[in-house]
């Protein structure tokens, strides 16, 4: 019951937010889908594609997906937490939110990640359709799951960066710099390192794209990898929530002299 009420509150907020920039949002959506439909309608046919072409295209698509996944997963927590804590002063409204600030922020970040994932998936599918590269659409339905798990597992690092940025009052530029360094580190990690879930997810995504574009076959999932990914997903969610909970405690123990006088200035 509680989760439904929380979801209702969140959707209410989302719908009000959407309405505040209604025209801009509708124009952006129309432009986005218009571009995708236009690209698909103009799709080109590579009749003679060598293996070299296929590998190059697969690497390109893989790289786009990975970059979008890391940046989306990494930036969403900081963007949401910074907005809610500093701009909306969510922790000052703590007693007005019966379902808990942590739950509300967690839901907002998750929703942002899922929205980002949907946009990424639609863009990638649009690109593949327009280049006529899809062998079997089921491969891309399978791709959705490692992408989802990948974004949530990357977001754990995003949450950590956010908590450091908020607690130490770092400037946005500094936080972005830290995020870029972490993105580079993520890209450097070797494939299929079981101690580093992101590398397994990366290998899985690479496997799916290569199967479809290079080998023209349906990707077969390895059961142990699926299990590993599910455990990663659950652990990522638990870690993210834990980090948010700790953030709440740290913010409440923070020295308040500065904030206090700021408040007095605000109310004058």
């Amino acid at each position, binding site marked *: 019951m509680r989760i439904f*009420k929380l979801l*209702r*509150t969140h959707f*209410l*907020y989302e719908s*009000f*937010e959407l*309405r*505040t920039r209604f025209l801009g949002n509708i124009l952006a959506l129309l432009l986005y889908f218009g571009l995708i439909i236009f690209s698909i309608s103009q799709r080109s046919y590579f009749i003679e594609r060598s293996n070299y072409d296929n590998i190059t295209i697969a690497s390109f698509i893989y790289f786009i997906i990975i970059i979008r996944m890391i940046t989306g997963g990494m930036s969403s927590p900081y963007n949401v937490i910074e907005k809610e804590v500093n701009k*909306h*002063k969510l*922790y*000052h*409204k*703590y*007693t*007005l*939110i*019966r*379902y*808990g600030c942590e739950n*509300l922020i967690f839901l907002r970040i998750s929703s942002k990640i899922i929205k980002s994932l949907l946009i990424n998936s639609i863009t990638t599918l649009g690109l593949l359709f327009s280049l006529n590269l899809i062998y079997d659409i089921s491969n891309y339905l399978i791709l959705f799951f490692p992408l989802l798990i990948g974004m949530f597992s990357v977001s754990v690092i995003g949450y950590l960066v956010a908590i450091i940025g908020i607690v130490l009052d770092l400037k946005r530029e500094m936080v972005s710099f830290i995020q870029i360094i972490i993105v580079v580190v993520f890209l450097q990690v070797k494939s299929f390192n079981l101690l580093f879930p992101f590398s397994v997810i990366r290998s899985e995504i690479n496997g799916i794209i290569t199967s479809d574009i290079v080998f023209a076959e349906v990707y077969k999932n390895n059961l142990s990898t699926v299990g590993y990914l599910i455990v990663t997903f659950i652990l990522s969610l638990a870690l993210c929530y834990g980090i948010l909970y700790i953030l*709440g*405690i740290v913010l*409440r*123990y*923070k*020295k*308040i*002299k500065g904030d*206090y*006088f700021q*408040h*007095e200035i*605000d*109310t*004058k």
Partner: protein
Amino acid sequence: MIELIDIKKNGIIEEANIRIPKNSKVVLLGSNGAGKTTLLYLLSGVYLPDSGVIKMGKGEFNFPLKLVDYRRYFQFLRNNIFFIENTTIFHEKFSIEQNIKYFTSMDEYEMDKIWELYSQFKVNENPSKIFKNISKGTKQKLIAILAIASKKQYLLLDEPTLGLDNESKLLFYKTIKLLNKTIIISTHDIESISDFDLVYNCESNHLVEVKNYENI
């Protein structure tokens, strides 16, 4: 009942000791920077005391809290306390109606009472008006409305009458006096203190109970 025993917060509050009986109406007075808002922050869980004990209703919490007590403490606050700091809590881009709908979806309010108070406080604005375009007094009236309509047992309000016209101020004090709740407000509004059961003055980071109003 609310009881604070030796509550301290990094030099702003020094050993606050107060005892507020159930359903009392309490006012906190004091100059800017004396610690009124900090005390409300500490009672509402926006910040946690460095040391001391807070007893509220059946709950007793020793600070610094043990790790296992955080959840219990935060849950207690969420279920029992209503704290509004100032008008910045609202979303400026939402309309009045959207803000009310959003806030009431997050907590329990007497919904019929909200729109009844809306007309009683003579909020002469169309509910679809965007929040950033309304006056400070009207925003303050909305805070008063939400506070009165809240179903929580403890209401903590920081300068709730700031910017209100005299008629609304009187209505606000008259209405909260009738509520069967423990209410703590901070204010600079000395004329209204006779409406309250207890008066505390924040002076050089200490809380002193005022028994004779003429001293102020």
